[in-house]
Every structure is written in structure tokens, then in C-alpha cells.
């Protein structure tokens, strides 16, 4: 059995940042990720990130991942790749896969940075070949250089739907429609405008009714919505061979549940997620969370939350003094506050504050 100070599950921006922050103060850190490539979502993000300069805005996503990796290497953080963490058991014992079968590791503190899962829509035809999540299409195009099809209907106009649509265009694929149930675009206007300039049609107040085809997607039926209710007689049919679902993400909380962390439901952050305090510590005092698992946000906030959890865990293990930790944590929280301001961020700021309040009220909603 392996032993470590801090075990981090997930090598995305949150997990890697947590590892770097804790290792900087001398903690022994092990990071495990089931992907063979570290970096989480970052490794398929070929676009230049928005955000602040401190968070590498203007830099393409995968390069941010590479930078984080270099830092973990310089600090000699151990990163195990290619196998999942299967479960967390009593006394912070975790089981994980390896080439030699299941292994175990005992950690003094755990940081769960498992990210989020993509949601799907169950409609007629949604099991046909050619229907996939936007993230799957993005992986095909950006990592494997394979076109999922030639005419794509994108369902959802949040940033994921907008960015993946743009990347489909860059890969030479036609985006024949971006469909959005709400009367306005969900993601950032600048991302939508890239598509508009390319002549991609937006169908606002519309949804996808059904998908038709024999051995794969051939046609897609859209219908107009009035206050989210289908308007009979407004059905229209588009020719397409691929449907991408970009209909939100749900935090991956299975391991947190196993670790006994109390949950709370916050729809605006993706659904059910572990309660946590201002140090990202859950109701299990040995388990911290960071990134999309604690509410679906962005890479920049994931990195800051990772740092926060890493420092708090190292502090709890005595690697830095309370004063020293307080100073660093305050600086991180201030940066998180600026990231969560403005037209789009305020809702997330409020929801995050609510989680911390619930935590201190003993989990009462």
C-alpha cells in the first residue's frame, strides 16, 4: 500500500493547480487521472481562453495545461495516468487501477477534482449513430483529427456549444444550426459573433423535436417554442448527419458520495454537488473539492479553487502557518471574486456564497 500526504483525484486544471500549491509548501502529493493525457478538459481546448492575464487569458487552452504540467514536474509531484480511482473507503483509503491490477493508497487528505459530465437529451432518434455530446465531437476533431460528420446541428448555445461549433467550422465541417430553447444566446456574445460572421444560423426559442435516419442521422426536426412549450405547426426539417448535444454539465460527485460528503442541490451550478466551506473543505474534514465538481464554471476559477484547496490541505497538515495560509487564501478569494463579477459571473458568485452559508448552517437549504 502506498502512503501520501495528499491524494488528488483528477489532473485537470483544478487538480494540477491544487497539487502545485500543496507541493510548493512541502506536502507530498500524488495525483491520479484515468485519462492517459493530463490536463482534463484543457487538452482539447484549441481556442484562446478568455479570462484575466493572471489566468493565462489569450493563451490557447492546451498550452495552459502544458504549463501546469511543467510546474508539477518541477515540483516532483507524482502523477499517475491511465487508470481511475475506483473508490474511497474508511480511513481515506483509495483504490485505483494500474497495469498490475488494483492498488491502494492511504492519504492524510484527499482533494477531489473530478470535473463534470456532459448532459444528454433523450428524444426520438437520440440513440442513432451520429448523435453525440459536444465534448465527444470536440475530442474527435481536436485530439484525433477525425470529422464526426459533414453537417452538424448543435443543440445548446452556451459557451461549450458556441466554441465547439466554431471548432467544427475550423475543421471544415458545416454547422447548419445552433438550436437554443431560451429566447437568447446562453454563452458569450463574442463567441456567438464568430459563428454569425461565418453565417451560421441560430434558432432561438427552438428545440430539437426528433432525429430521423435509417443507420445514422439523416434529418433533424426542430420546433419553435413559446415559453419553452412547442408551438404546433412550426416543425421544420433540416438535413444533417451529426447532432451535438451541448446541454449542460453535471458535477461528477460519485467519489465524494462514497467519502460521505453531504450534498446540496444548486441548479445554477449544474445540480447536486458536495457542500463545502470557504476553504473548499467538504463535510468530511479530510476531503476537499475543487473545479467543476464543486459547481460547473471555468478553467480560471477551477485553477483558483484548486490552489485554495491545495493550500488549505497543506495548512491542515501543518506545512504552513495559519497566518501565512490566511494571506494566500485571501488573495485567491479576491481573485475568485473578480472572476465571478459582471453580467455572467454574479449568479455564480451568489450561488457559491449560498453553498458556504448552507455549510455553516449544518447543511440546511
Amino acid at each position: 500500500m502506498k502512503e501520501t500526504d495528499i491524494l488528488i483525484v483528477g489532473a485537470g486544471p483544478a487538480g494540477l493547480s491544487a497539487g502545485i500549491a500543496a507541493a510548493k509548501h512541502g506536502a507530498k502529493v500524488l495525483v491520479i487521472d484515468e485519462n492517459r493525457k493530463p490536463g482534463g478538459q484543457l487538452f482539447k481546448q484549441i481556442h484562446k481562453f478568455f479570462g484575466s492575464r493572471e489566468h493565462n487569458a489569450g493563451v490557447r487552452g492546451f498550452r495552459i495545461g502544458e504549463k501546469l504540467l511543467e510546474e508539477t514536474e518541477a515540483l516532483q509531484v507524482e502523477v499517475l495516468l491511465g487508470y481511475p480511482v475506483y473508490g474511497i473507503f474508511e480511513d481515506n483509503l483509495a483504490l485505483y487501477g494500474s497495469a498490475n491490477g488494483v492498488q491502494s493508497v492511504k492519504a492524510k487528505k484527499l482533494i477531489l477534482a473530478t470535473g463534470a459530465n456532459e448532459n444528454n437529451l433523450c428524444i426520438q432518434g437520440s440513440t442513432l449513430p451520429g448523435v453525440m455530446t459536444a465534448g465527444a465531437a470536440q475530442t474527435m476533431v481536436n485530439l484525433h483529427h477525425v470529422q464526426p460528420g459533414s453537417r452538424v446541428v448543435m443543440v445548446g448555445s452556451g459557451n461549450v456549444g458556441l466554441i465547439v461549433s466554431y471548432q467544427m467550422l475550423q475543421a471544415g465541417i458545416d454547422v447548419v444550426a445552433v438550436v437554443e430553447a431560451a429566447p437568447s444566446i446562453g454563452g458569450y456574445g463574442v463567441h456567438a459573433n464568430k459563428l454569425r460572421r461565418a453565417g451560421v444560423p441560430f434558432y432561438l426559442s427552438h428545440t430539437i423535436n426528433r432525429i430521423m435516419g435509417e443507420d445514422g442521422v439523416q434529418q433533424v426536426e426542430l420546433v419553435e417554442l413559446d415559453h419553452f412549450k412547442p408551438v404546433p405547426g412550426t416543425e421544420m426539417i433540416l438535413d444533417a448527419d451529426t447532432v451535438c448535444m451541448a446541454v449542460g454539465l453535471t458535477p461528477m460527485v460519485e467519489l465524494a458520495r462514497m467519502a460521505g460528503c453531504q450534498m446540496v442541490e444548486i441548479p445554477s451550478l449544474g445540480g447536486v454537488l458536495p457542500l463545502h466551506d470557504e476553504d473548499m473543505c467538504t463535510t468530511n474534514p479530510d476531503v476537499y473539492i475543487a473545479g467543476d465538481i464543486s459547481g460547473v464554471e471555468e478553467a480560471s476559477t477551477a485553477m483558483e479553487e484548486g490552489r485554495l484547496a491545495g493550500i488549505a490541505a497543506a495548512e491542515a497538515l501543518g506545512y504552513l502557518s495559519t497566518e501565512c495560509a490566511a494571506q494566500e487564501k485571501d488573495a485567491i478569494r479576491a481573485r475568485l471574486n473578480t472572476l465571478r463579477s459582471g453580467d455572467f459571473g454574479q449568479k455564480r458568485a451568489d450561488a457559491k456564497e449560498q453553498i458556504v452559508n448552507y455549510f455553516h448552517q449544518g447543511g440546511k437549504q
Partner: protein
Amino acid sequence: MERTPGIPTPERLEQGPVACIECVQCIPCNPCEAACPQKAITVGAEITALPKLDGDRCNGCGICITRCPGLAIFRLHKHYTDTTALVSFPYEYVPLPEQGASVRCSSRDGAFVCEGVVSSVRTAPTFDHTAIVTVEIPKEHLMDVRGIQRKGGQ
């Protein structure tokens, strides 16, 4: 759009090439601020504020165009000749258009506006795979043309 603080004033447009920052939503983003060597762009400590363009400082160099992750910065040169203007925009598709080629210029929503000629295509390692394409167009379309229709059209 006119009230956006990144849009140059009509007077400034008369005076030569200038950046035009079409960033209209308060999102947390500020790489443009550091990109400008002339310090003509200000976002400030509150990084969700809209970028403000100082038209007196901006010399129209175009460096900021490739630094905006939203691809929302353009460069406008109203009086390139007596009848034509230049519009520069970021371009991230392959193949790149060729200098001298006739192209169909399009608006913010991809609609055809007018024919134009590619006056330059700039690439550089520091642009990190975002090219700057400049088209020469009839002057009256300066505030409408923001891109070109790609090969085959849409």
C-alpha cells in the same frame, strides 16, 4: 454599439488607421489591455469592465487584433484611397486567403456586403495561429464589413 467604449469616434476614424473593439458584454477578460504597446486600451482592475479605447494613443498598428480571444477587435482605415477603405480582422480558418485575391466581404452576421480585394495577410509566431487579413473595400461599407465569406460560401 455606438456607445461601446472600444469604438473609435467618427472624428478619430477620419485621422487614419485605428482599432475598433466590438466587445459589448461585461465578461471577465482583459488580455487586450496588455497587448497594446501604446497603452491605448484600458479595462482596469474590475476585469469584467468593457475595454475603453484611447483614440489619441492608438496608432492603428493592429497588434491587439490577435490577442482578443473573442476575435472582437478590428482595425479600420477609412481614407486608404479617395474611394476605398481598409478593414482588418482576425482569421482562424484554412486555407488563408491570398493577397490580391477578390473576395466576397461579409457583415457581422455573415451576409454578403460587397466585393473586396485582399490587401494583406499577416501571420507571425506571436499571433499564435490567428492571422490578420486586411481587405480593401468601397469606403461606404467601412462600418459593415467585418469578414469574408470562406471558400464555397455559406
